[in-house]
C-alpha cells in the first residue's frame, strides 16, 4: 500500500479508485488524506472544489443540479475553512503561552524550593502538587542553629498564575523578616500587613505557621484562617483537630493572632494540609473530612514521606488524575 500523498490531484485518484472498487482501502486512504489536509491547513472548501472537478471529469454528463448543489455545499463550507485557520492559529498561540507558563512554573519551583531539614528526633514528610502548572500553595521549612524548626504553610485564593504571583510575595516577605522574629503570631501579623497593602481587595491568603522546639518538646502555632490540621495521638490511635482560629491574611489592615502551644509526645504526628486535600471532589460528591482522616490513618504507620506520597496517590487516583485545587500535605512525626 503506497502512502497517501497530499495533493489535490491525489484526491481525484483516490475518488476514482473508490468509485471503481467501492472498497475499504480507498476509504482508509480518504481518511489519511483528510488528516494530512488538516495538518497542512487545506480548507474544506478546497476539497469540495476538487471533488466537483473530479466528478465532472469522471462523468461529463453530470446533471447540472448535482454540480449546482455542490457549489452550494462549497459556500456552506467557507466558515469551516475559517475555523480551521483559526484553529491552527490558536494551536500556535496556545503552545507559545504554555511554554511561557512552563518557564514561569520552573522559576517558581526554584523560588519556592525548600529543603526538608534534618532535625534530630523528627521524621518529616511533605508533598505539594499544583492543580495546574503553577502552584498557589506554599510551604517552607526554616531550621535555625538552635535546632528549632519553623514550618510555614499557605494557600492563596484561587489557582494558576495570579495565585503563584501572590505566593512569591509571601516567600520574599518571609525571607526578609529578621532572624530573631520567629514567633508564629508575629510572623502572621507582619505578613498580614504586607498582603493587605499589596494585593487587590478580593485576594487573600490563608496561612499556618508553626514552630517546633526540640528542647522543650513543644509546638507553638498560629493560624490565619487556614484549613485546620490534625494532631495524631499515637497511643490512642486518634486524630484531634488543631484548632487555631485567626483571620485570613489581607482581609483587614490590622489584626492579631492568638498563639497556641502543644506538648508533643513520642510517636505523635502533626499533620498540616491545605483545602486541596480536604475538599476533594469525586464527580459531584464531596469527600468528607472523616474519609480524608481514614485515608491518612491507613498510611500513618509508614515513614512520613512515604505516608504523604501514598495519601496523595490515593486521592489522585480517586479524582481520576485531575486535581481541582493545589494539594499540600505535611506530616511531622516525633520519633523519640
Amino acid at each position, binding site marked *: 500500500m503506497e502512502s497517501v500523498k497530499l495533493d489535490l490531484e491525489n484526491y481525484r485518484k483516490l475518488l476514482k479508485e473508490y468509485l471503481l472498487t467501492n472498497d475499504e482501502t480507498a476509504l482508509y486512504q480518504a481518511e489519511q488524506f483528510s488528516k494530512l489536509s488538516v495538518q497542512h491547513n487545506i*480548507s474544506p*472548501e*478546497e476539497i469540495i472544489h476538487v471533488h466537483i472537478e473530479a466528478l465532472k471529469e469522471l462523468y461529463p454528463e453530470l446533471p447540472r443540479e448535482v454540480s449546482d448543489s455542490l457549489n452550494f455545499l*462549497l*459556500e456552506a463550507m467557507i466558515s469551516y475553512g*475559517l*475555523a480551521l*485557520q483559526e484553529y491552527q492559529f*490558536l494551536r500556535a498561540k496556545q503552545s507559545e503561552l504554555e511554554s511561557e507558563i512552563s518557564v514561569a512554573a520552573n522559576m517558581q519551583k526554584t523560588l519556592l524550593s525548600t529543603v526538608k531539614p534534618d532535625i534530630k528526633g523528627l521524621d518529616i514528610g511533605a508533598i505539594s502538587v499544583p492543580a495546574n502548572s503553577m502552584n498557589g500553595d506554599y510551604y517552607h521549612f526554616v531550621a535555625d542553629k538552635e535546632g528549632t524548626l519553623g514550618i510555614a504553610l499557605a494557600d492563596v485564593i484561587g489557582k494558576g498564575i495570579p495565585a503563584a504571583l501572590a505566593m512569591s510575595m509571601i516567600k520574599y516577605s518571609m525571607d526578609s523578616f529578621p532572624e530573631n522574629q520567629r514567633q508564629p503570631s508575629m510572623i502572621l501579623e507582619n505578613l498580614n500587613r504586607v498582603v493587605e497593602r499589596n494585593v487587590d481587595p478580593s485576594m487573600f491568603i490563608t496561612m499556618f505557621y508553626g514552630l517546633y522546639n526540640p528542647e522543650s518538646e513543644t509546638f507553638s502555632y498560629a493560624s490565619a484562617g487556614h484549613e485546620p490540621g490534625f494532631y495524631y495521638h499515637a497511643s490512642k490511635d486518634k486524630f484531634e483537630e488543631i484548632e487555631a482560629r485567626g483571620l485570613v491574611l489581607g482581609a483587614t489592615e490590622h489584626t492579631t493572632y492568638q498563639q497556641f502551644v502543644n506538648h508533643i509526645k513520642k510517636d505523635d504526628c502533626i499533620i498540616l494540609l491545605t483545602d486541596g486535600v480536604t475538599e476533594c471532589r469525586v464527580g459531584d460528591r464531596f469527600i468528607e473530612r472523616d474519609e480524608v482522616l481514614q485515608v491518612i490513618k491507613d498510611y500513618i504507620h509508614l515513614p512520613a514521606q512515604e505516608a504523604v506520597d501514598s495519601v496523595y496517590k490515593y486521592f489522585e487516583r480517586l479524582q481520576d488524575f485531575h486535581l481541582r485545587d493545589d494539594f499540600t500535605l505535611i506530616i511531622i512525626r516525633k520519633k523519640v
Partner: protein
Amino acid sequence: MGFNPCVNIRKEWDIVGARQLGREHAKELGFGTVDQARIATAISELARNIYLYAGTGKICFEVINQLDKKGLKIIAVDKGPGIRDISQVMQDGYSTSGGLGAGLPGVKRLMDHFEIRSESGEGTEIEAIKLVR
C-alpha cells in the same frame, strides 16, 4: 484604472446585492469558484458590519489590473460610530460577537490584503484586495 461601482447598504437585502455584484466582477476577472465564494463571504461580512453597526454605508469595487497583478478591491465605507480600539477588533484567534472567526479578522483571512482606517465618531473605511492567482 478600472470602474468603481458601489452598492449602498441600507437594509439586509442590500448585502445580497453587494455579493451579487462582487461575484460578477470576480467571475469576469477569472477567479475560481472557491475564491468567488470567499470574496462573497468577505463582502457579506463587510456589508453586514455596515448594516448592523453603522446603519448605512456603501460597498464599492475596483478592478486592479496592473502588469504584475490582477485582482479585485472591495472598499467598505460608512459614517457610523467608528471603531475605538482597532487592535482589539482585529484580535485574531477568536473574533468578536463570541461567534466564529468571521467578523473583520475573517475578512482579513479570506482576502490577500486588508487595511482599515477608523476614527471614533467619524466612521470607518476598509479596503480588502483579493488577487487572481
